[in-house]
């Protein structure tokens, strides 16, 4: 509904125009105002579509009203038609037009002019309205479209920027245009750096030629995109990484050709690939036999070791064939498949059959494996344990042998460690274990024996281990109330334990004791014997002495003295034997020393008159020789004391004793006395003493004697003490 406002103070004008509008303009309301002030107020209130203003209004004329309306925001666009009472001058026309007034109509109003103008203004307004509407619609459409574009641009931008793959745009010549963050990360260069680089700067030389020819010059131009290919990039830090590239051709709006590529750093993948290759090789080169069969038991794969174990040359010999023929007993094969199906894993030992029909023992571990597309495979590791089993059998055999050996022994065989722990007690038939084996095993020596005994054993064991030698010891134990003597040997078996073998030696020990006792007895008896002999000799001597003392006869006294000296000489031998506790030999040096002393006393020789010179080595003689030799020496030395220095003349008696290398004993008895007359041969002398002496030397001793009478008498006796066997 259109609205018209008329501002006129003339009522007839208002009415006339109102009528006109009602009659000729449909859908239009009329508002009136009689003053400019009112008119402005109503305009603000109603916002009419058209205002008719009488120019000639008093108080506020049309121009003022118009200015006022044009100054108000809500009314300044409202078209205004002036109504003028008078003819309108061109000046007023110009003035009105300048004010934005649409037209001026003179009063009386020509109805056709007014209605036409009003209609025109309304039509214009409608057209303007439509245009405004269209503009709004277009603007909205434009905004929507712009939004859409913005959204997809966002999408592409995020795709571009956030892609894990590197995306790079290059020119046909390979110059970098733009790239995403991922690409920057891959190459290590910054955007600024890349923007002045080209592809060749990050491509290793060996790829450049091929990439250029195959991808840029062939595939991309021809197909618009390339195959996915692998190459390498040289990162900024110089590292070389493997990458996978897919390239596309695209035309920009300006018709330029750009190539863009998806670049993937495949270092990780490469690593994984290498690991798989390594794994494959590991299996292939493993010393264990490795095989894969399918759910029907047919071979899929076997490694070198497996083929070798079964005497096969080539995988092709068995692929697709049943693994049953590899089992000596087909039942074993069946069992394997059944168990694997049921439990998914299986460990067994079985007799395998080689290609050439020979058998061997295999230890096999298998398990079920499901492939990516749900196929079932059985994967097995096989070990040839034939030697192992043979070694076991041999071991068992030797163990049996050992056990029967032990069974036949009565010795105690044990292994004890350095702390005294009983590590092992062999099952010998020893009935003399201190305690039954089961009570000893796991215990220590200190748990079984009192400390002193345990320590003795321990020290013995420790010494063997320290010196790493076999040691022996003897010890007594009380077993079943009897004393049992053991002889034990300990041999180091390991660095920390010994093998301890003990044997009952009670009988031997008793025998030994007996022998020792007997020997001691014998020795004691022998000593007693010598003592008795000595004693008896003294008895004889006493008897003779008493007899001699009864007589006044000098000859008797002399005779007695001589006999007594001989007895002394003999008795001295026994005395020496007894004293030295040597039952066979006497020390001739000691003997001579004492004999000389005794004879000097016997003949009452004063040392100031006759001095002694003794050069005696330590020489031993058997008793069989000692007694006769004693008598000889007695004769020689006595003669010196009796005859060499008469009339209290002084002199020296010298005695020498030594042994030559050939075991000949030499004795020299010399004096520097009066000697003997040159024509006297002592060998022929009638003197009984001398005669006896010569006889003893010739017949009883294996000896020779010579004398020299020069500056006194010098006797030289040579004796070999080998006539008799050492008897005791």
């Amino acid at each position, binding site marked *: 509904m259109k609205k018209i406002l008329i501002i006129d103070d003339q009522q007839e004008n208002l009415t006339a125009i109102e009528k006109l509008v009602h009659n000729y303009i449909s859908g239009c309301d009329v508002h009136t105002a009689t003053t400019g002030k009112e008119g402005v107020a109503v305009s603000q209130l109603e916002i009419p579509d058209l205002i008719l203003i009488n120019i000639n209004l008093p108080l506020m004329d049309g121009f003022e009203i118009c200015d006022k309306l044009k100054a108000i925001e809500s009314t300044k666009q409202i078209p205004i038609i002036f109504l003028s009472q008078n003819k309108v001058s061109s000046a007023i026309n110009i003035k009105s037009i300048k004010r934005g007034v649409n037209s001026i109509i003179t009063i009386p109003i020509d109805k056709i002019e007014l209605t036409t103008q009003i209609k025109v203004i309304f039509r214009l307004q409608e057209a303007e309205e439509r245009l405004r509407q269209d503009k709004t619609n277009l603007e909205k459409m434009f905004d929507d479209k712009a939004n859409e574009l913005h959204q997809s641009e966002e999408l592409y931008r995020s795709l571009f920027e956030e892609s894990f793959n590197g995306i790079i745009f290059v020119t046909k010549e390979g110059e970098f245009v733009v790239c995403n963050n991922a690409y920057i990360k891959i190459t290590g260069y910054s955007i600024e750096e890349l923007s002045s680089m080209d592809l060749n700067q990050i491509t290793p030389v060996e790829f450049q030629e091929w990439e250029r020819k195959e991808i840029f010059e062939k595939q991309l131009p021809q197909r618009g995109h390339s195959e996915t290919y692998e190459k390498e990039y040289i990162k900024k830090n110089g590292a070389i990484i493997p990458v996978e590239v897919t390239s596309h051709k695209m035309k920009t709006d300006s018709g330029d050709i750009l190539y863009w590529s998806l670049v993937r750093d495949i270092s990780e993948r490469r690593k994984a690939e290498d690991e798989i290759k390594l794994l494959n090789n590991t299996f292939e080169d493993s010393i264990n036999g490795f095989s894969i069969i399918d759910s029907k038991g047919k071979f899929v794969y076997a490694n070198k070791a497996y083929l070798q174990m079964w005497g096969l040359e080539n995988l092709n010999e068995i692929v697709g064939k049943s693994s049953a023929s590899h089992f000596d007993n087909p039942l074993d094969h069946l069992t394997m498949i059944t168990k694997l199906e049921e439990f998914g894993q299986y460990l067994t030992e079985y007799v395998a059959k080689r290609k050439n029909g020979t058998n061997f023992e295999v230890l096999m571990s298998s398990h079920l494996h499901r492939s990516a597309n749900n196929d079932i495979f059985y994967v097995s590791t096989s070990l040839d344990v034939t030697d192992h089993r043979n070694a076991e059998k041999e071991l068992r055999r030797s163990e049996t042998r050992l056990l029967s050996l032990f069974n036949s022994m009565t010795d105690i065989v044990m292994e004890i460690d350095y702390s005294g722990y009983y590590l092992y007690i062999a099952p010998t038939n020893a009935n003399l274990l201190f305690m039954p084996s089961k009570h000893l095993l796991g215990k220590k020596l200190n748990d079984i024996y009192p400390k002193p005994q345990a320590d003795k054993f321990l020290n013995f064991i420790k010494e063997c281990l320290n010196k790493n030698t076999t040691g022996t010891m003897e010890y007594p134990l009380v077993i079943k109330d009897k004393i049992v003597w053991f002889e034990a040997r300990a041999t180091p078996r390991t660095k920390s334990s010994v093998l301890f073998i003990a044997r009952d030696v009670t009988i031997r020990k008793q025998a030994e004791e007996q022998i020792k006792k007997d020997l001691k007895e014998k020795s004691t008896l022998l000593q007693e014997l010598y*003592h008795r002999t000595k*004693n008896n000799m003294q008895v004889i001597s006493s*008897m003779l*002495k008493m007899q001699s003392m009864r007589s006044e006869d000098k000859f008797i006294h002399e005779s007695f003295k001589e006999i007594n000296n001989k007895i*002394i000489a003999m*008795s001295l031998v026994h005395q020496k034997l*007894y004293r030295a506790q040597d039952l066979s030999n006497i020390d001739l040096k000691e003997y001579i020393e004492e004999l000389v002393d005794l004879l000097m*006393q016997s003949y*009452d020789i004063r040392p100031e008159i006759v001095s002694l010179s003794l050069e005696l080595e330590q020489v031993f003689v058997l008793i069989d020789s000692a007694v006769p030799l004693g008598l000889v020496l007695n004769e020689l030395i006595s003669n010196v004391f009796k005859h060499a220095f008469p009339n209290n003349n002084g002199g020296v008696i010298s005695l020498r004793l030594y042994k030559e290398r050939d075991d000949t004993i030499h004795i020299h008895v010399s004096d520097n006395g009066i000697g003997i007359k040159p024509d006297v041969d002592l060998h022929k002398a009638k003197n009984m003493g001398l005669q006896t002496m010569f006889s003893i030397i010739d017949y009883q001793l294996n000896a020779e004697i010579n004398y020299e009478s020069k500056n006194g008498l010098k006797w030289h006796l040579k004796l070999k003490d080998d006539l008799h066997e050492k008897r005791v």
Partner: protein
Amino acid sequence: MDRKIKILLAEDEVLIAQCLKMELEMAGYNVCSFVAKGEEAIITAEKEEPDILLMDIHLSGKMDGIEAAKKIIEHRKIPVIFMTGYNEIAIFEKASTINPAAYLEKPVELFELKPIIDSIFS
């Protein structure tokens, strides 16, 4: 000493004892008696009161010469000369405990005894 030195001789071998007695008496000593047993030696020593004991260590009977000598000198402190036919350290040590004047090994000769006795009583 004015009077003769009185010796008590203990020796179980009679012939040796007789001979020694003869020798000693010829040398001017008085051998009051000789005994063969230790117990006898003690009794005789009490009775005779000798000046010196000449003791064989090995005597017949249970007591040996050393024990007898010990008992005798507890009563009367007199010098003791031991004689022995046995060469054993143990016996020598036992004998030493009563500090004998001499310890002689048999056969004992007069020419050994005389200087010892004389030096004791000089």
